[in-house]
C-alpha cells in the first residue's frame, strides 16, 4: 500500500492498574490492555482489526479517538502529534460508529437532534443551515424527511445503525472508527450496512479502522488486516496475503476456526486449545505460546517483535527469525 499516512501509531501502550478491593487503592497488578502497538493507516484505505474479546482492540480504538489516554507511545494524525492541545482541533476529523445501535443513540432525542448534534457542538450554523447539511445525507442513507421527527425506538436495528452512520458522517470526517458496527445485526441487514460503508467510502474518500471479531466480515471490508492477541499486533498484511500466505500460528487458528457456510467444504474446525490467558498474568515471552502448536524454547524467554517478513507483510513470531532478510 503506498500513499500518504493518515495515522501513525508508535509504541502505543495502555496499562490499567488493578486494585485489590474496591475500597483499597493498593495496586495488585497491571493489566496491559494494549502493550506496544505500532502501525500506520493510509489515507483512503480500510484497515481491519481483528481479535478475540479482551485482546485490546476496543481500548486501542478509544485511544486513537482520544476517549482514553495512552500510558506510553505516540499517535500522529496527518503528521501532527496528537496530545491534549491538538486533540480538540482534530476531533471533527475523526468519528466513531459504535457496536450497539440500541445503546449508542439517546432515546430522548429525535433523529434530527441526534444527527445534528455534532454540528451543534462544532459549528455555528443556524437551524435551517443545519437541516440543509443533514438532509442530503439522511436521504442518501434511505430516510425520508418525516423520519427526522421520529425517535430511536421507532426504528429497526439496521435503521438505527444507519442513524449512527449519518451522525458520524455529518461533519465530513476523514477518519472513522467502526467498532463492531454489524455484529448486533442480522445477516440480511448486515449486508446492507456493509455495502453502505463501502459506498460512502468510494464517494467521500474516508479512511476506516474497521474492528470486528468476524473474519469473513473483516475480509470483505478491509484492504489490510491487523490481527491482535493479548494487547499486541501479531500479524499485519494485505487481506489477500493474510489469507493465502498466513504466517502467524494464531491467525491460522483463527481462520480455521470459522465454520464455512458451504457443506461441500469441510472445515475441520480444529479448535485451538485453551483460552486467552488472563491479561493480569500473561505468560512470559510470546503471549500466544501456551496455545501454540509450534512453540519452541525461545518463545518462553523472549517476546517476538512485529517485523516485516515479506514485503508489506508483518508478523511477530519466532518461527520467522531466520527469514529476517527485509528488516
Amino acid at each position, binding site marked *: 500500500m503506498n500513499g500518504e499516512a493518515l495515522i501513525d501509531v508508535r509504541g502505543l501502550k495502555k496499562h490499567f492498574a488493578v486494585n485489590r478491593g474496591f475500597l483499597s487503592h493498593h495496586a495488585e497488578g497491571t493489566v496491559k490492555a494494549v502493550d506496544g502497538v505500532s502501525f500506520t493507516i493510509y489515507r483512503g484505505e480500510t484497515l481491519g482489526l481483528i481479535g*478475540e*474479546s479482551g485482546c485490546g482492540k476496543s481500548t486501542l480504538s478509544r485511544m486513537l479517538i482520544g476517549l482514553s489516554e495512552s500510558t506510553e507511545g505516540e499517535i500522529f494524525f496527518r503528521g501532527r502529534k496528537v496530545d491534549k492541545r491538538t486533540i480538540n482541533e482534530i476531533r471533527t476529523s475523526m468519528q466513531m460508529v459504535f457496536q450497539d445501535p440500541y445503546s449508542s443513540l439517546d432515546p430522548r432525542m429525535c433523529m434530527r437532534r441526534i444527527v445534528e448534534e455534532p454540528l451543534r457542538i462544532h459549528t455555528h450554523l443556524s437551524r435551517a443551515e443545519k437541516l440543509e447539511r443533514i438532509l442530503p445525507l439522511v436521504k442518501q442513507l434511505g430516510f425520508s424527511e418525516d423520519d427526522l421527527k421520529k425517535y430511536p425506538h421507532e426504528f*429497526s436495528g*439496521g*435503521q438505527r445503525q444507519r442513524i449512527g452512520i449519518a451522525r458520524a458522517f455529518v461533519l465530513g470526517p476523514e477518519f472513522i472508527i467502526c467498532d463492531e458496527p454489524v455484529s448486533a445485526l*442480522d*445477516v*440480511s*441487514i*448486515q*449486508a*446492507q450496512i*456493509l*455495502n453502505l460503508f*463501502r459506498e460512502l467510502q468510494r464517494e467521500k474518500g474516508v479512511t476506516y479502522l474497521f474492528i470486528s*471479531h*468476524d*473474519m*469473513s*466480515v473483516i*475480509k*470483505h471490508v478491509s484492504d489490510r488486516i491487523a490481527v491482535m492477541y493479548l494487547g499486541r499486533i501479531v500479524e499485519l498484511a494485505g487481506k489477500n496475503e493474510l*489469507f493465502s500466505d498466513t504466517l502467524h500460528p494464531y491467525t491460522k*487458528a*483463527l*481462520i*480455521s*476456526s*470459522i*465454520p*464455512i*457456510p*458451504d*457443506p*461441500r*467444504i*469441510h*472445515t475441520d*474446525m*480444529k*479448535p*485451538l*486449545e485453551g*483460552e*486467552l490467558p488472563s491479561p493480569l498474568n500473561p505468560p512470559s515471552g510470546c503471549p500466544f505460546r501456551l496455545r501454540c502448536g509450534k512453540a519452541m524454547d525461545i518463545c518462553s524467554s523472549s517476546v517476538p517483535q512485529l517485523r516485516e517478513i515479506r514485503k508489506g507483510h508483518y508478523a511477530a513470531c519466532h518461527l520467522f527469525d531466520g527469514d529476517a532478510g527485509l528488516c
Partner: protein
Amino acid sequence: MERILAIRGLKTYYRAKNRIVPAVDGVDLDLEKGEMLGIVGESGCGKSTVARSVIGLIDRSYTEIAGGTAVFDGMDLLHLPPKEMNRIRGARISMIFQNPLTSLNPVYTIENQITEILSVHTDMNKEEKHRRCIELMKMVGIPAPESRLKDYPHQLSGGMQQRVLIAIALACNPDIIIADEPTTALDVTIQAQILQLIRSINREHGMSMILITHNMGIVAQMCGRIMVMYGGVCVEEGTTMEIFTSPLHPYTEGLLRAIPSIADDKEELFSIPGTVPRFTYPVSSCRFAGRCPYSERGCTESEPPLIEMENGRKVRCFRYMEKEAAL
C-alpha cells in the same frame, strides 16, 4: 429411522396490547433419532419460540399455544399437565441456552448447579451425585474438574460456563437436546471448541439434537437437515446439501448470498431489501412478499402452502408451484 419428536401445526401466539402476534404460525417438524437438525432464520422469525413451546418454557400469561401437537414418546408435550412436563424437561429433553452467564445462578457453586438436576430427576445419593458430577465435567472437557467443583460461575470463562451448561443438559442422559444459539456469545476459537464438543455428543452418544442458530456457517458444518424459518413459518426444509447447493425459496437464496465469504471476493454483497416486517394475525399474504425480488400480485393475495416433495424436501413459494405445474 426412528422418529423421536413429531411436531404438527404448532401455533404459538403472543398477545400484545391490541393485536395478536403469530410468533409461530403452523410449523411441522420431525426429529429422527440421532440426527442433528438445524433451524435457521433471523431474529424474530420464531425459531426460539418453537423450541420454548416444545419444552414448555413459554410464559402463558401472554402467550398462547393456539394449536398443534408435539408428540414425544406417545405424549403430546403441548398439552401435558405441568407436573408431567416437569418430569420430562431437563431429564428427557433438555436445553442449552445462548448466554451462559445469565443461565447459571451466580450464588451457587458449579457442583451445586450440576447436582441440582440429578436431585430433581434421579434418586442418587450424595456420593453418586458427586461422582456423576465429576464424570460430566470430564465429559464436557473441563480440565481438573475436582478443583473446579467449588467455583462460582463468575470464576469461569465464557467457554467454561457454556461447558457447565452442556454438562447440566447432559446430566440425565436426555433423548433430545435443544441448543438455542449455543455459541453466539463466544469468540470464534472457543466457538470451534464448543461446536466440536456438541458434535461429539451427537455422534458418540447418539443424542438427537436441534440446533438453533442464525449462522449459516454453523449449520453447514454441523447439521444434516435444515429448516429455514421466516415470519413464524417454515419457508424451506431439506438436507443441508440441498439447501446450500440449490435453495428454492427466494429468502434462503438471499440469506446465502448475503454472507460475506472468506473463499471469494465480491465487491458488493447481495442484500435483502427492507427489514423483517411485524406480522399481525391473521396473515393473508406470502410473508416474504414485501422483500422478495420475484414477488407478483398473487403473492400478496394469499399465503402459499408448504409443498412437500417426494424426497421430503419442502418449500413455501408460489413460484415453485408454477414450475411444478409446468412440468
